[in-house]
């Protein structure tokens, strides 16, 4: 399990990392390394140069500014899981973090690395979609903001361009009711199905609008718009939620593998979507 040879450069600032990346187009950014290093050990990836951004201090923070929550890309899963600010203002994030891998993985893995990797069974992409997150990418040419809706392009493929680094994740505060539920693969811990539900409710137990992010089910995380449409303006009772949840796999190509066939996953997706919405609705 020894990776192919590579060169290693530690960037001390974001500018240094961007310069190195601009000069070496096949280089890879090394964040927590908990997706990249396993892939390099299997020689599925053989980058000639790793640019380590792990020591750039100002990429690791959880702040509040202009009505938004702002999270640095190098913030670890554990920092999010244990953040009191997030438990108060955006409980979906710590809840989602607590489901990732195990304690050691959460100590090292980062939210930015997970989003940039876009593993089809990763947890953060579902949360980012449900929360309507904005992802801030920087390159030598400047900065741009990408909506989570536009960020996940395909299997392990995002809207980040060569030379771009994901710098920050932004989430608008809106007092919504949230939940993340997941069926983990018993060996790997990754999601067979993961559902992030984010509901805006009015005083009379009615759902004004819903955003539902799904992971583990298809080649990339996606929004279950069929469920969202069925929930909008609907009463939050058991029957209405169960009916809406059935739309989770509308127009979606479902993964099947040795552990869970496509039919079984479709079934699970509806069950977990129902549970996610019910749990969120119970947390007004």
């Amino acid at each position, binding site marked *: *399990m020894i990776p*192919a040879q*590579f060169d290693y450069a530690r960037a001390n600032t974001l500018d240094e990392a961007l310069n190195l990346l601009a000069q070496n187009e096949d280089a890879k950014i090394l964040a927590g390394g908990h997706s990249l290093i396993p892939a390099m050990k299997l020689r599925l990836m053989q980058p000639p140069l790793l640019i380590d951004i792990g020591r750039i201090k100002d990429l690791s923070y959880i702040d509040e500014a202009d009505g938004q929550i702002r999270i640095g890309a190098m913030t670890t899963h554990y920092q999010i899981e244990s953040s009191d600010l997030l438990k108060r203002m955006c409980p979906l994030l710590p809840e989602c973090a607590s489901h990732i891998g195990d*304690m*050691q993985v959460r100590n090292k893995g980062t939210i930015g690395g997970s989003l940039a990797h876009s593993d089809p069974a990763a947890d953060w992409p579902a949360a980012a979609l449900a929360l309507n997150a904005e992802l801030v990418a920087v390159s030598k040419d400047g900065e741009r903001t990408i909506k989570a809706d536009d960020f996940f392009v395909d299997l392990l493929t995002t809207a980040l361009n060569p030379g771009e680094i994901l710098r920050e994740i932004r989430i608008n505060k809106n007092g919504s009711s949230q939940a993340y539920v997941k069926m983990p693969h018993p060996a*790997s811990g990754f999601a067979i199905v993961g559902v992030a539900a984010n509901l805006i409710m009015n005083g009379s137990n009615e759902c004004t609008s819903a955003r539902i992010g799904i992971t583990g089910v298809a080649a990339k995380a996606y929004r279950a718009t069929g469920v969202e449409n069925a929930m909008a303006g609907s009463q939050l009772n058991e029957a209405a939620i169960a009916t809406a949840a059935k739309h989770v796999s509308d127009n979606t190509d479902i993964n099947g593998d040795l552990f869970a066939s496509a039919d079984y996953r479709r079934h699970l997706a509806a069950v977990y979507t129902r549970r996610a919405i019910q749990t969120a609705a119970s947390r007004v």
Partner: protein
Amino acid sequence: MKQAISINVNGVDYPGEVEPRMLLVHYLRDVLGLTGTHVGCETSICGACTILIDGQAVKSCTMFAVQADGSNVTTIEGLAANGNLHPVQEGFWECHGLQCGYCTPGMIMTSTQIIDRNPDPSREEIRHGLEGNLCRCTGYQHIVEAVEYAAKKASA
């Protein structure tokens, strides 16, 4: 190309030169001769290679030695102070928390982090904390009891 690094392991500075692809666990075992840290799966699953790096429990098979340059590492060899077992080590001894012992260094390092973050963990919290450590022998019950013992002892 080899790179110069310096890692403080169990309070001692070790300067050295490594290929960037050398995993931290191999550096600890094969270069520094600290074989208390075990290699089980090499695939980030079993937790036998768990160490503390700047106070965080990490699987040292999923980190390059170059990443640890300038860091403080604690391995199982560094836990006992002045000939006295660490409370977690004592817990594993008293509660029969091991059989073959292969998983034990990783279990103990992870357990120190659990009680460090939560001085009075419930059984469920201990099990959640140990999710990244596999044991093929004990059935885990005695390990959970060892961590409970250690938590009581550490806060006594």
